[in-house]
């Protein structure tokens, strides 16, 4: 009751009184509170978006844009089954991916994801990129799978993936499975 001066007191009965605070003071109190909380959260959102946001890139885009070196990137490409090697001692997984379009519209226009992946892996002229990933070998890693990787491209032109997601649309058109590694 430190703010008694701000309240008008209505005498109801000898031993009963209620405080009716002046509305504008209350409104200010709440508006300031809201403002503080909301601006703190907006700050959090902006800072974390900038720090953790990932650029979605295709193999072509990544290779043609030197600015992307060392940047946090999400890359999508078709897996070349023959290039997969897995060192079970170090859990180092190496494979190559081939460029596929990033835009769903382009993929649809070219006959769907399964077709795009098939064309990419059988096209000798498409751009390729070496990928290194350390961890378990995902169950779905095989030829013509779509790999979605988070990581960075190094100065050696190799893509170092921190996470690896795979999609195999060949048979499960309806329920494209996907699995993540860490």
């Amino acid at each position, binding site marked *: 009751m430190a703010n008694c001066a701000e309240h008008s007191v209505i005498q109801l009965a000898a031993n009963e009184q209620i405080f009716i605070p002046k509305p504008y003071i209350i409104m200010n109190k709440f508006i300031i509170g809201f403002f503080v909380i909301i601006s703190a959260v907006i700050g*959090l959102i902006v800072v974390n978006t900038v720090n953790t946001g990932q650029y979605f890139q295709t193999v072509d885009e990544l290779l043609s844009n030197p600015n992307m070196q060392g940047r946090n990137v999400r890359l999508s490409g078709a897996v070349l089954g023959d290039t997969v090697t897995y060192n079970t001692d170090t859990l180092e997984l190496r494979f190559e991916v081939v460029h596929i379009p990033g835009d769903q519209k382009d993929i649809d226009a070219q006959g769907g994801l399964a077709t795009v992946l098939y064309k990419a892996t059988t096209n000798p002229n498409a751009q390729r990129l070496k990928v290194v990933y350390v961890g378990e070998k995902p169950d779905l890693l095989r030829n013509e799978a779509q790999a979605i990787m988070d990581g960075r491209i190094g100065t050696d032109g190799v893509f170092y993936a921190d996470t690896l997601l795979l999609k195999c649309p060949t*048979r499960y058109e309806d*329920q*494209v499975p996907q699995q993540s590694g860490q």
Partner: protein
Amino acid sequence: MLLANLGAIATFLAWLSCIYASVMSVLAVRKSRADWLESARLAAFLSWPLLTLACLLLIVLITQGHFEVAYVSRVSSWNMPWYLKVTALWGGQQGSLLFWSWLMSTFIGVALLRDWKQERDLYPYVISVLSITLAFFLLLNNVLENPFVTYWQDAFGTVSTALFPPSGTTLLIPEDGNGLNPLLRHPGMIIHPPMLYLGFIGFIIPYAFAMAALIVGRTDDAWMRVTRRWSLFAWLFLSLGLVLGGRWAYDVLGWGGYWGWDPVENAALLPWLSGTAFLHSVVIQEKRGMFKHWNLALVIITYSLVVLGTFLTRSGTLSSVHAFAASSLGPVFLSYITLMAIVAMAMLFYRWNSLKPERPLESWLSKEGLFLLNNLLFMVLVVTILWGVLYPIFSELFTGQVITVGPPFYEATTGPIWLALVILMGVAPLSAWNVGSAKRLGKMLWLPAVVGLALGIGLSWLYQLRWESAAGLSAAFFTTLVTLSEYFRGAAARRRTKNEPWLKAIWNMAIRNRRRYGGYFIHLGVVLMAVGIIGVELFQTTTQGSIPLHGSLQLAGYEMHYEKLNQFVAPDGRSVTRAVVSVWQNGRQVGELYPRQDFYPDTQQTSTIPGVRSTLQDDFYVLLVGWEPIAAQGATFKIYHNPLVNWLWIGGIIFVLGITFAAWREEA
């Protein structure tokens, strides 16, 4: 073929009856015709037996192996066990949409069966809103994603799918189907999707009531009470679905993870968050006559988020482990969401003035103020997560560059908000209505705060002292202490006045105020879940290595011995490679685990199943990653040590029990 046609007809008739019900119920009010209303009601009811028939027919088609039906062919195969054939009903886009509509018709049936004495004026509009919604989903079932279409082949061998034979074609009957996606062949498939669906669809009833109240202009709270129970019911199933999904991921899919901030997981979390906000703020409306606009808005937002989540899952807009492939549903869904949200919000503004609060808000530290803060925090979570989910779409729209945010974004941004919510759970129960006094609260809270801080820092120090874990665990202990002392205070008072023994006093106190004490029980569940999450997120350690037979690996005070490797073919055709490992602690064997990999030759897909030793203290989680040819016997393992993770599941169970207790019976 006959069965498929029958199913398609039943689905179509259900659609017609919904359209009829939605129009007739409104006309009945306009013309004051009770018989028309009755006919609308019966039509709305009729959708249930029709859709039940359609779902049963689809199950029969799947279990009998009618592979000429495209859906059956896509989601099932001969060698699947029968229980998975039944779950194949919701294993793909078309079937799960039909199942969704069936559940919705069940909810509608139950809602229309209840006693409507107090809400007679709302009744026609509730029928109408519910029927329109169901009609929308049935439109998808009938036109865009019909599960009963069959394969047809023409003279040139071209295969098409349609309900009725295109000219010059004959029915194509494949020998076998593709089978359910191996990742879905798990007992979790029986219960996780139906629970989530129940949770999602349950919010349709509160939404229908809210819309009806807005249309009629009802400003009293009677309908709100009805709504609250339905929301609690939906919330229960949504919570169950989320927890079960987490457990399934932990056991099979996630390799030690339980939550991946996957867009579809987020889409399920969003209505849960706004539903949680609603269940809190509705208390304020009932007790104090405040927050009326806000509650209506929350009901509308929650249902909109349900539809948005369904849209994101089913349109192929976002890629995720749960998503269905790209489909034609997008534009239809988007139009529906937009229209629905605009109409609802317009109605809310139209009735704005009749929903004035009965008293003003006094202080942040009053109970009302803290409930408001709770709501603010939940909605801030909704906005944050929605931002993360939609950011790729917006960034492409505005910069032409798709930028995504992943788990690091969600963890860093929502972490402090979760922390604030846990602390708030401890403070709010002690606050008083109307007045806020920092002095009074401080007097009651300093002791639990100090003890909580000591325990939190202590427990964190046992594993690894970090400020995040110390803060999180301290908040958890603080809130636990305050909540337990609330039980204690109430029970002690009862013990004194009624002379009852402790347990009886606690029970009698709780059943006389189910919402309050059920709510506290839910809070305890949440706090325990928070402890589990802190444990696995901040204290998890991992190691990996290739070892020869009888070799060993060490992690976090445990030693794992590799004993044996078996390979065999299971009855359903998958070939299994199974390792036997023993787990030792302080020179004593504490368990034997069987991590394995299943290989499905028909789909060329493997599935990795961990071996886990669980205690209240930690989980020792072993994955068989690879192996040399069977003669050489060497194998590669990855091991996770997940401290405290079981409190996540225990908390989940307590949480669900708390909701059940709170929702059990309507209070006087």
